[in-house]
């Protein structure tokens, strides 16, 4: 829920710098801002990375159904489980190397706002943590379903 509200708010906030840029250039009412573009891209990165976490949780990342649905409980566990394990593996790569990447961001600052770039680079390990937690939760859910089936079968 927190993620959902944040994303909605960020999209709303995103309209401000871009809107200001348009208004300032064509009306001259407010001076031309050089930092609007920079700020907009920073918000944008946050929206994308938070959204990617949420989509792992909602399972709304696009996937392709070519092979048929598994019919047995074990087949389902393997089919679904593989997806969650794969996403988690990618997530751990992002957590592990994302720390170094954030450090790489921290030695840079943006040209206009003079903001430390770690503030946006940190979305990389954060997204990794989000994907890992959510995909492992799903994996646990699948295992629980499988156990339930085995118990019912006995």
């Amino acid at each position, binding site marked *: 829920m927190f993620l959902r509200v944040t994303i909605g708010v960020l999209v709303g906030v995103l309209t401000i710098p871009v809107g200001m840029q348009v208004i300032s*250039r064509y009306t001259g009412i407010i001076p*031309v801002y*050089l930092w609007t*573009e920079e700020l907009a891209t920073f918000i944008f990165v946050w929206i994308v990375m938070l959204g990617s976490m949420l989509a792992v949780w909602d399972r709304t990342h696009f996937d392709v159904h070519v092979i048929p649905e598994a019919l047995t409980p074990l087949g389902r566990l393997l089919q679904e489980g593989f997806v969650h394990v794969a996403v988690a593996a990618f997530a751990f790569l992002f957590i592990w190397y994302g720390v170094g990447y954030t450090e*790489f961001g921290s*030695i*840079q*600052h*943006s*040209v*206009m706002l003079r903001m430390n*770039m770690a503030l946006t680079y940190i979305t990389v390990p954060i997204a990794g943590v989000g994907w890992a937690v959510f995909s492992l939760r799903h994996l646990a859910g699948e295992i629980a379903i499988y156990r339930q089936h085995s118990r019912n079968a006995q």
Partner: protein
Amino acid sequence: DMTLRGASLFDENHAYTKTLMKFGELVNEYSGEDIEFDLRLNSELGIEPDYVNFLTQGVAIDYAIIAPSNLARFADSLPLMDMPFAFRDLDHWNTVLASDVFAPLEAELREKADLVIVGYAGGGTRNLISNKKISNMAELEGHKMRVMGAPIQAKVFDAISASPSAIAYSEVYNAIQTGVVDGLENESASLAQYKFYEVAPHVTLTKHSITVRPIVFSGKSFDKLSPELQEAIMKAGKEAGAFGRDFEATQDAEKLAEMTEAGNIQVHEFEGRDKLLELVIPVQDAYAAELGAEELLEAIRNK
């Protein structure tokens, strides 16, 4: 047998690409080795800010030519290298680049971004390009012009009484056509390539900037090489840079003459260019003070 990989935004005829090819040849000549130089052209591996990240981390490529503004993320003072009115003329520019005046900037870049500057290319002279004749202070006043997005650019042109605004490069042509701005400032090569003269045929020889383009080598790759090879690279970089500067400066003057002859542009001298310098000096001083680079600015001026 070793491979070193470089990257260029442009095709094989561009001055920067030629400079980097020359660099490879010279490295082999001075080191006596047979290194393969795999130079990837036409922005195949990305654009300059991407190259900076690769070089800093020592992945994918080993060397490239980078505009100082793209290094500002790591080291504030780098854009000082080619800020407007930094150089009096081509001779002054050449003297500065052949000297070690920029050594403090080089050290800062090595420390903060692990990048080694091995030489300096560049050599495009930037002038005003406008849809009306500008030849003196009166005509310059309030002139609506597009400038690059760095704060120092806007401040300098504001100081000389023009009215600068930052517009993306890709939109400039349309912006002049529709009267959002009356002109821009650029070098002859770009003027010819993007045919800005179709909408803005007047060129005023303000000669406010002469471009400086460091040839940058990845510090991580550099440290892995033998001292002999490192030395050869530094020597080759300086010479390739000098070659590139000569090549581009000559080409730049030729392009301007060609366009004048073809009747594409009308060239105007600026009456009282000294007045411009006078107006800009306080802005430059303030900028250098902000960066703590007063000594450096002084050193450039005294060369």
